[in-house]
């Protein structure tokens, strides 16, 4: 279970953060965001919403136009050395020297944080073993698979043992099995006290892992709440029912809208808080045997789309 650590300053506190590229494009329009220590936090938003710009500013790779940011109480402008010490970042794109070996990449990164070689080597071995890279630790990192490169970036971000880990699309392009093992790893380090912020396009990932969520769209935070509270906002869910015997048309059940998609499959819309027991009873009464049931789409995905769609302009045709 994820625990928020009390009596600590927030892991991240963003106040009125603005970023204007050039003279015109306002990528961030004064966002406020607080992530508590120990949280597992999702920052969601469509492409170009401002997620990567926000992360870039926190990590000092992008210069802000206005606003303040503090990390565990350390202002990134006035106390940048301590603020940076607290942050580990896993960017979306591979950004390590592809000609260097993983062990060298990790030891060098530790060195940039003032960690001596002996300690750095011990930590590098530990993280490379935990992430299944130890056997390849001395090979040029360009020879690693995509999933291995992504795990290497996680190991690199952890080498100085930050209190806040920021992951920008950490499982993009990673196969399902590896994604699950990375989730387990992230849950494990979160349970041991590391605050995690992740951006992702896999909303199932956010729903499974995260306790709190912010949705950013066109430089504005449009939602900032717990994942549970967000899910409660869902007014309607669609379930897919797999049927044993072939049907030629959708059965009629009072209180439910049922769509016949093919002879062995039905889609049922269920309102939030509505029981589904009467549905099964009615289907049983019509000799329709349900083999399995699943959500048509991820619940968070439905909400996300509805929230972002509200803000999208109509397409001119």
């Amino acid at each position: 279970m994820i625990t928020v650590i009390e009596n600590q300053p927030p892991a991240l506190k963003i106040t009125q953060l603005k970023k204007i590229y050039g003279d015109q494009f306002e990528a961030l329009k004064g966002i406020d965001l607080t992530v508590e220590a120990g949280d597992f936090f999702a920052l969601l938003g469509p492409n170009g919403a401002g997620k990567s710009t926000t992360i870039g500013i926190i990590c000092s790779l992008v210069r802000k136009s206005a606003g303040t940011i503090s990390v565990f109480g350390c202002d990134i402008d006035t106390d940048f050395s301590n603020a940076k010490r607290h942050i580990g970042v896993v960017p979306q794109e591979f950004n390590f020297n592809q000609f260097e070996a993983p062990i060298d990449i990790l030891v060098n990164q530790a060195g940039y944080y003032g960690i001596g070689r002996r300690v750095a080597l011990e930590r590098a071995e530990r993280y490379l073993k935990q992430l299944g890279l130890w056997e390849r630790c001395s090979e040029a990192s360009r020879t690693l698979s995509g999933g291995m490169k992504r795990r290497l970036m996680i190991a690199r971000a952890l080498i100085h043992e930050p209190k806040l880990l920021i992951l920008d699309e950490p499982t993009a392009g990673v196969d399902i099995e590896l994604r699950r093992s990375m989730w387990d790893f992230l849950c494990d380090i979160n349970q041991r006290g590391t605050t995690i912020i992740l951006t992702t396009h896999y909303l199932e990932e956010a729903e499974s892992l995260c306790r709190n969520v912010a949705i950013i769209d066109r430089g504005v935070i449009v939602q900032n709440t717990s994942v549970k509270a967000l899910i409660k906002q869902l007014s309607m869910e669609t379930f897919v029912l797999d049927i044993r015997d072939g049907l030629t048309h959708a059965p009629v059940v009072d209180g439910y809208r049922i769509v016949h998609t093919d002879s062995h499959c039905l889609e049922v819309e269920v309102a939030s808080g509505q029981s589904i027991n009467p549905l099964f009873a009615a289907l049983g009464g019509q000799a329709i045997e349900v083999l399995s049931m699943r959500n048509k789409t991820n619940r968070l995905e439905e909400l996300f789309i509805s929230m972002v769609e509200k803000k999208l302009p109509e397409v001119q045709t």
Partner: protein
Amino acid sequence: MSRYEIWIAFATIVRREVRRYLRIWPQTLIPPVITIVLYFLIFGNLIGGRIGSMAGLPYIQFVAPGLIMMSVITNSYSNVVSSFYGSKFQRNIEELLVSPTPNIVILLGYVVGGMSRGLGIGAIVTFLSLYFADFSIHSLPVTIAIVLLTSMMFSIAGLLNAIFADSFDDISIVPTFILTPLTYLGGVFYSTELLSDFWANVALINPILYVVNTFRYGFSGVTDINIFWAFAMVLLSISLLFVVTLRQLQHGSRLRS
């Protein structure tokens, strides 16, 4: 960061830089040595024998300090420009930018890495030149001081070039169209006494003229220019380059959007 942590960060950058050029030694160490040996063979032995003396020195002794300095300049510059731009291109420069390593330590780390290659190649070339020419040292302090400062100056210049570069073309334009012509016109192969007054005065705006002549003075006591003025020019250039480069690391839009 504490002083000890800053030292670790600095040593990490320097060690990584040295390992980089040692790892690719067929590209970084062998070609400059072969090039300079060919210069010695052609300009020193074959053609130099027919030229006779220059500024009162046998031509091989006149040209040797310039050739050594040429290798120091080009290797100091090219090491930093290619390494730093390579880091920008692969984006692994972000490893440093997100860390608490102060910008001045990043600058010094790259510069010392570049100096180690420039001075290392210079030492190898000096050793090889003993086969072609007899050397005597007129002033060891001047020789050592000017070679260190020159290596530092061109390492910083290489870093500045890399910060501004947006493509691999940008890191080859300066060495090809500025550094090489300035080196050839910087008194390596001839004395400015051979030039007309006008061109001799034009040559004074070339910084390489100062470092080559001062280095030659360190070996033979022969120079076309005042060495105190030369040291002042070199120190001024280093100071300006240092301030501009540090400012770019801190506030420049080339590294942080």
